[in-house]
């Protein structure tokens, strides 16, 4: 092999790395602004300024704002999955309840503005609708795993009904109303959810 052929991949890798880093910084700038301006979608000029690049650089990486939105949603959802607490699968009913409600509350508290922006601005985008559906399905699968002992005591139909009701009850907007409209503290809102989830769930056979 010649010297040139050895050097070429390194140069390309360096360029690719820089390009990836730029992309990442643009996504992070978008998320910071969407969070601050929610539900308004930030403009390309605002995103470019925040990221420290030109508008042209933004559109070199993302053909339009919608594509950037989708990339940002994917990144944010990966963060929620990887970093956010998701509730204990083990322990008695009270331990699981406490841990699930607190974990959900923390996710809602952190991601409310971005989630609201996503819901309001989804428009006709099938990609964004698909991400919203996936997020809800993931959350419901988590609820099903955490409350398996209780849910295993009821029929398939009732289990499905309970999961849909639990998801509605602990929706991000339900949290937002408790905090912003009814002015509950974080702890008071957690207690309200604890009481409601406990009432919704069937008694598990061990405690009957």
């Amino acid at each position, binding site marked *: 092999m010649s010297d040139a052929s050895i050097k070429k991949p390194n140069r390309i890798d360096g360029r690719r790395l820089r390009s990836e880093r730029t992309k990442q910084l643009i996504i992070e700038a978008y998320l910071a602004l969407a969070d601050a301006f929610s*539900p308004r979608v930030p403009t390309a000029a605002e995103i470019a300024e925040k990221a420290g690049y030109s508008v042209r650089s933004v559109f070199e990486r993302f053909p339009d704002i919608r594509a950037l939105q989708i990339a940002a949603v994917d990144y944010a959802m990966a963060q929620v999955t990887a970093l956010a607490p998701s509730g204990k699968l083990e322990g008695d009913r009270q331990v699981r309840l406490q841990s699930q409600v607190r974990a959900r509350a923390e996710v809602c508290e952190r991601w409310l503005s971005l989630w609201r922006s996503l819901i*309001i601005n989804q*428009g*006709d985008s099938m990609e964004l609708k698909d991400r919203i*559906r996936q997020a*809800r399905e993931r959350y419901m699968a988590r609820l099903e795993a955490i409350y398996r002992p209780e849910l295993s005591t009821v029929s398939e139909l*009732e289990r499905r*009904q*309970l999961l*849909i*009701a639990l*998801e*509605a*009850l602990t*929706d991000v*907007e*339900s949290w937002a*109303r*408790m905090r912003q*409209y*009814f002015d509950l503290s974080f702890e008071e809102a957690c*207690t*309200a*959810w604890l*009481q*409601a989830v406990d*009432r*919704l769930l069937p008694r598990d056979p061990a405690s009957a």
Partner: protein
Amino acid sequence: MNKPSDAKPARTDGRRQRSVRTQQLIIDAYLLLLRESPQVPTAAAIARRAGYSVRSVFERFPDLHTLRVAATDHVMSQASQQAAGHPPKGSRAVRLKTHVETRGRVCEEWLPLWRALNANQGESAELKDRIRRVRELVIRRLETMYEPELSTLGPVERQQTVLAIEALIDFESWARMRDMFGLTYEEACALWVSAIDRLLPSTPSVS
């Protein structure tokens, strides 16, 4: 009184009536367009649907924001009438069924407007006020329907129960049951009835 002064009020009344009717037709056109598409209707589309000119629309409503507020007020008054037609009478099961079916119909019918209201509220104090009033109506209604059960709770637990039921019967919760989970109207109502029944405390026996 002479004849001309007799005739004048009648002419004015007729004109006012026509103007009110035009206003109502414009509001109806706006609501119809919202149901057909989630996009915010344009002035031209509203005028076309109502059978008037764009100028006529803006003669009645200085801007689309004012039309949105008027449409919301119209719907709120209709929804209140719908609810008033189903007073809180009967056993727990009857009240549950009545409440949920009425709420389901309201969600079914007015979800597009609710979404438009939320999407367009921006900095509008008027729209924010309407959203707050709609929520208050929903809460008042459920407090009236389940007063026998809620009256057995202390103030904190009562508020927690009301908040939980309000979250459960939210417009978007209904939308998810119908669109995402593919439930029929009856299945969605059955789900709400069963969940509210679990959230409520026992009904006190009548002594």
